[in-house]
């Protein structure tokens, strides 16, 4: 490995960290970034009582779609890495993200009741816990 001080050295170290376990940390970091944007937009709608239209809702829906895509991609990469704890975590991640997605679809589909938004929030908090567990576990094991 080259020196850690140079720019190329830093790049090599980062690439080494994020490519562990068949690129699981890279995918988990991408999903985490997407989840944070989802949360910023969704929480803005919930806190400020914004109408279900416009930029916040578009940002929320698009990043939510990417959350599901990254969650399924994470299952693929953890399966290739043959790391059982990571596989279990990514299956739990898919279940929680799907729970949040289905609650969100009910909410957006016309059942504008708090219980569906609460389901979205509960699924979200489980998703962010499992995703960050995957991210931090995958760079270490």
């Amino acid at each position, binding site marked *: 490995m080259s020196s*850690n001080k140079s720019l190329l050295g830093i790049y090599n*170290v980062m690439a080494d*960290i994020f490519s562990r376990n068949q690129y699981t940390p890279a995918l988990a970091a991408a999903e*985490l970034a997407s989840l*944070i944007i989802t*949360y*910023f937009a969704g*929480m*803005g709608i*919930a*806190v*400020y009582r914004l109408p279900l239209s416009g930029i916040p809702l578009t940002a929320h829906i698009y990043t939510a779609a990417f959350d599901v895509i990254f969650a399924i991609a994470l299952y693929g990469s953890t399966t290739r890495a043959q790391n059982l704890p990571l596989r279990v975590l990514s299956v739990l991640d898919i279940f929680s993200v799907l729970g949040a997605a289905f609650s969100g679809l009910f909410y957006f589909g016309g059942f504008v009741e*708090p219980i569906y*938004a*609460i389901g979205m*929030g*509960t699924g979200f*908090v*489980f998703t*962010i*816990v499992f995703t*960050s*567990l995957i*991210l*931090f*576990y995958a*760079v*270490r*094991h």
Partner: protein
Amino acid sequence: MESKGILGKVNRNTPVLISAAIEEIILMGAFVAGITALLNDQFPITASWMAALLSAHLSFAVLSGLGGVLLFVVTYLSDRKDLFYLGLINVIFIGIAAANGLMFYATYNYDYSYTMAISFIFAIICTSGCIAWSI
């Protein structure tokens, strides 16, 4: 297993694992109670069951503050730089969330509620990091 440089494998740290797991459960409880209170009523609240819900949120918040300080102390005692930084960032974000929550309760300005929610998410990411890196 021993230390192998940047983010290499290190030993398990049981105190950090236990306190981070407890902190994680408390934070999730605070989030669910808080979002249920947010979505069900306008502030200031009137119904008594809403008051119970908000009390649950406040209790979880106080417990998560204490748990955050405990986690910071345990990570400090663990003699590991990575865990120490995660615990420090965690307790800073919990402090920001607590301060904004108290400001929201005093002013009913929704900007403070939003800041509370934003800092919560970074705190729970750091707590999950403490769990994963202490296993």
